[in-house]
């Protein structure tokens, strides 16, 4: 792969690396920033669910370019990390949202739509065993 040895390739790679690095880091930072300043949990959730994924993904890409630059080899291994994140991030977000709904975390006042999960009626499982820390109720053992 002789074309790789050209000087402009180096420059290009360097530029790409730097660009992706900054872009990735910036997105990462912004999503974390969003997590700090957004008003309710459901909003805060959006950042990590995708922005972070992308941010890290971009940094990984930067890394690939970097190693292409210095070793002239293409480390596809790093792609795996991105794929992993792509598979898992939505699931984490989904589960977290489930938890938040389960815990009836209040949504911001401006939110339209009120899912049944956040309404007051009881949606949980009936108690099969009383809570041990619940004073006054008897305790039951599982045999």
């Amino acid at each position: 792969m002789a074309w790789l040895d050209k000087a402009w390739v180096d420059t290009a790679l360097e530029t790409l690396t730097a660009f992706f690095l900054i872009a990735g880091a910036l997105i990462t930072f912004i999503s974390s920033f969003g997590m700090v300043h957004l008003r309710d949990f459901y909003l805060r959730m959006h950042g990590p669910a995708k922005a972070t994924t992308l941010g890290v993904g971009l940094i990984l890409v930067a890394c690939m370019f970097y190693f292409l630059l210095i070793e002239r080899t293409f480390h596809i291994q790093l792609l795996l990390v991105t794929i992993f994140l792509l598979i898992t991030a939505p699931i984490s977000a989904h589960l977290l949202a489930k938890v938040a709904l389960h815990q009836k975390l209040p949504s911001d006042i401006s939110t339209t739509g009120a899912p049944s999960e956040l309404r007051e009626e009881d949606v949980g499982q009936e108690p099969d065993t009383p809570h041990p820390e619940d004073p006054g109720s008897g305790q039951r053992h599982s045999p």
Partner: protein
Amino acid sequence: MLIKRCLPRPILSSILTMVWIMLSDIITYGSVIMGIILGIAIPLMTQRFWDAQPVVKKPLLLLRFTLRVMLDILVANLEVAWLISRPWRRPRPAFIEYPLTLKRDFSITLLASTISLTPGTISANLRLDGRSLLIHVLDTDDEQAIIDEIYNRYERPLMEIYE
């Protein structure tokens, strides 16, 4: 028959082989052969953990779908980043009940993941009966538009691919 028994999941097998090669970080005969061996062995080992097999009916469509999602992810992220980094404008979040037409767990999962990864939406809860999906939208005015977009952009292709 033998092929079917040895290769119960050709797609998984090929994915695994590819992943192995990615892991090995180098394409040699050795890594390819090892990848193929593992690609055959691991599905055999893990077969018992799989539910009903999702059959890909239109592989090409799947590829196109994947590419579209990739692109959407990029856009989505930039959009979200933009939204987040604008403290002066309050987003208009919303909960949306999305009625599902997909039936299979696998495709529902794909859809839900896709929704979460793409612009401003997160699939918050899958109802127990599997008939509808609760979606949290970061910033919207028009709920129906979002439902339509999801349906057209993601759910219908998935229907075609898998069901």
